[in-house]
C-alpha cells in the first residue's frame, strides 16, 4: 500500500508540524502556490511503520550477502558513519568561510592526496557526484586537452565491447563517436583490431581493468603504447579498482585520466542507488582541465581552488563540492585501512572470488574464462542449463532470493550468454561463501528435478515474480491524486 493510500483528511503529526502557518508572508505572492500540495495526511507513527516495513522488504548489505558483480557491495563500516556525522561536519554549511572549515578541508585534502597515491595520478578532484559524472568529467577533459592543442579532428572514442554501458554514453555526451573494439577469446582486448581502429581520428580509449569479464587485461602496456603513439589518451573506469587496490596503479599502467567510485571501492553506502562520489584523477597533461573546486594546502591552512585559480578548468559539475558526507566516509575508510589495508582489500577480494570460482567449477558450473585466474569477480555461464533444462539465468537469480541471497549481476556483460557476474568482495567469510555455493548447487538440482519450481521463483518473498515486460510497456511511475 502506498503511503498516499493511507491518507485521511485532517490527520497530521501535530507534535511535529506547527498548527499556525508561518513564514508565508515573507514570500512574494507570485511565488506562493495556489493549491495545497498532494501530500499524504498521515500520523508520525504511520510514517515510521510504513518506511520501516518497506526497508524490511528490501535486500541490503546489512541483511544479506550481496554479490552483485561490478558493484562492489562490501560492508560499510559503522565507524565511517559515526565520524562523518560528527557535529562539526554535519552542521557545517557549504557556504561557511574557509577559516571556519579548516578541519573539513584538511580531510578533503588528505583524501585527494590518498587517492593520488593509490591511483598513481598527478592530481585529483573530488567533486564529481557519481561515477557517471566522473566519466563525463574525464571525457570532457580529454576533449579540452585536444581542443587546446588545436587537434580538433579527433572525433572518436574507442570502447571495448565488454565495457560498462556508461562508457559509450559518456563519450557521446561529450560529442564523440564511439567505435567498439572486440575482445579476444581469453578476455583480453583484441590488440590487432585496436591497432586497425587507431588513427588521427582517435581521441582516446575508455578501459576498465580488470575488465567486466573478471580478468586483468595482460596487454595493457602494449595498448597504452599504441594509443599514445596514435595521439590518443587513455581513460580508466575505476569500477573494478577493488581488485588492484594497493597492488597496481592505473597511472603506472599508462592511463591519463581515471574516475574512482568511492561508493564501491571505498565502501560508502550505495544500496539505494546513491548518493555516489566519482572523483577524477589525471596525469600531468590533463591537470589544467580538472573540475573545480579542489582543495589546496598553503602552509598550515587549506583553501578552495576555484575558476580564478584554474582558468582552464572544465568548470563545476555540481553545487559546492560534490557529496561531502560521502567523501568524508571514504576519507575515514581510507585512513582506517591505511596503506597495508588497501593491499589486503585486493588480496581478500581476489581470494574470495577465486575460491568461489574453483568450488563452483568443481560442482559442474561452467566458467566463462576457465583458463584465466579471476580478479575480484568472475563469470559463470548457465547456457548449458538454459538449453538442456529450459531454466535460465534469471530463474536461478530469482531462486537465490528464496535462499536469502541477493542475486549476482545477471546478463551482463552482454558478451557472455546466460551469465552470472559474481563479486563476493573481501567482507564475507568462508561460511557465507560456502552457503551461497551450496544454494547454487541446490538450485541446479531443483532445475533438473523440478524446473517449474525454479522458473516460478521467488516463492517466499513479499513480491513474487514480476511481469517485467508489462512493467516496461505500461509505465506506472507516479501516484496521482484520485487514482486508485
Amino acid at each position: 500500500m502506498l503511503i498516499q493510500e493511507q491518507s485521511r483528511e485532517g490527520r497530521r503529526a501535530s507534535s511535529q508540524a506547527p498548527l499556525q502557518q508561518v513564514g508565508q508572508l515573507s514570500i512574494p505572492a507570485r511565488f506562493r502556490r495556489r493549491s495545497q500540495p498532494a501530500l499524504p495526511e498521515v500520523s508520525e507513527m504511520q510514517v515510521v511503520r510504513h518506511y520501516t516495513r518497506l526497508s524490511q522488504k528490501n535486500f541490503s548489505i546489512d541483511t544479506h550477502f550481496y554479490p552483485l558483480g561490478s558493484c562492489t557491495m562490501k560492508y560499510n563500516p559503522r565507524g565511517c558513519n559515526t565520524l562523518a556525522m560528527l557535529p562539526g561536519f554535519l552542521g557545517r554549511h557549504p557556504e561557511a568561510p574557509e577559516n571556519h572549515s579548516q578541519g573539513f578541508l584538511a580531510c578533503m585534502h588528505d583524501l585527494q592526496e590518498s587517492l593520488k597515491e593509490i591511483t598513481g595520478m598527478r592530481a585529483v578532484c573530488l567533486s564529481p557526484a557519481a561515477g557517471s559524472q566522473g566519466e563525463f568529467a574525464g571525457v570532457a577533459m580529454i576533449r579540452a586537452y585536444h581542443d587546446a592543442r588545436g587537434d580538433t579532428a579527433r572525433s572518436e572514442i574507442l570502447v571495448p565491447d565488454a565495457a560498462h554501458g556508461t562508457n559509450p554514453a559518456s563519450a557521446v555526451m561529450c560529442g564523440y563517436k564511439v567505435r567498439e573494439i572486440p575482445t579476444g577469446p581469453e578476455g583480453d582486448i583484441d590488440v590487432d583490431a585496436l591497432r586497425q581502429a587507431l588513427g588521427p581520428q582517435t581521441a582516446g580509449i575508455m578501459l576498465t581493468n580488470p575488465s567486466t569479464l573478471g580478468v586483468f587485461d595482460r596487454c595493457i602496456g602494449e595498448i597504452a603504447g599504441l594509443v599514445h603513439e596514435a595521439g590518443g589518451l587513455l581513460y580508466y573506469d575505476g569500477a573494478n579498482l577493488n581488485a588492484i587496490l594497493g597492488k597496481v596503479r592505473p597511472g603506472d599502467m599508462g592511463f591519463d585520466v581515471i574516475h574512482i567510485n568511492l561508493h564501491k571501492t571505498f565502501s560508502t553506502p550505495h544500496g539505494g542507488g546513491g548518493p555516489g562520489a566519482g572523483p577524477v584523477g589525471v596525469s600531468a597533461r590533463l591537470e589544467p582541465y580538472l573540475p573545480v573546486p579542489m582543495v589546496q594546502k598553503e602552509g598550515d591552512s587549506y583553501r578552495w581552488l576555484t575558476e580564478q585559480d584554474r582558468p582552464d578548468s572544465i568548470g563545476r559539475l555540481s553545487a559546492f563540492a560534490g557529496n561531502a558526507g560521502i567523501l568524508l566516509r571514504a576519507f575515514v575508510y581510507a585512513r582506517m585501512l591505511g596503506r597495508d589495508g588497501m593491499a589486503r582489500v585486493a588480496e581478500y577480494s581476489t581470494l574470495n572470488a577465486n575460491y568461489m570460482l574453483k568450488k563452483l567449477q568443481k560442482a559442474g558450473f561452467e566458467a566463462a574464462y576457465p583458463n584465466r585466474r579471476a580478479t575480484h569477480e568472475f563469470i559463470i555461464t548457465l547456457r548449458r542449463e538454459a538449453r538442456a533444462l529450459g531454466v535460465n539465468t534469471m530463474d536461478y537469480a530469482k531462486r537465490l532470493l528464496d535462499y536469502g541471497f541477493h542475486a549476482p549481476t545477471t546478463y551482463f556483460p552482454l558478451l557472455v550468454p546466460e551469465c552470472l557476474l559474481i563479486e563476493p568482495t573481501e567482507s564475507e567469510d568462508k561460511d557465507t561463501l560456502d552457503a551461497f555455493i551450496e544454494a547454487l548447487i541446490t538450485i541446479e538440482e531443483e532445475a533438473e528435478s523440478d524446473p517449474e519450481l525454479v522458473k516460478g521463483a521467488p516463492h517466499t518473498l513479499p513480491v513474487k515474480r514480476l511481469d517485467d515486460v508489462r512493467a516496461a510497456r505500461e509505465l506506472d511511475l507516479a501516484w496521482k491524486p484520485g487514482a486508485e
Partner: protein
Amino acid sequence: MSNLPTELKYAKSHEWARDEGDGTITVGITDHAQDQLGDLVFVDLPEEGDSVDAGTDCAVVESVKAASDIYTPASGEIVAVNTALADSPELVNASAFGDGWLFKVKMSDPSELDNLLDADGYQAVAAAEEH
C-alpha cells in the same frame, strides 16, 4: 531457424531487407534476433525523410534484457516507418518478418544489397553465434 525466408537479404548484424522492386527496401530484424532479445518493450525509429548510410545505426529496439542498435543495410532516404510499433512493440516478436517490419529505405545505391547475405549465409552466422 527452419523458416528463414529465402527471398530476403540479411546482414550479419541481424537485420533483413526485402527488395520491393521499386528502388525501396523494407527493413526489419530477424526472428533469431527477436528471440535472442526477448520481449520488446520499446522501438525507436528514424524519421521519414532522414538520410541514412549503409551500416550506420538508425533505430533502436529495446527489450527488458538489452537495447540494440539497428543498422540500415543500405544507404538512402527513410520513406516510411512502422508507426504501429510505437504502441505495439510486441509485433516484432510475433511477426519479425511481417507486421514487425521497422522502416523502408529509398536506396541511393541498390548495388549495396549485393554485400548482404542470403538465407543460407545468414543461417551459418546465426548458428555460429549459438554454438
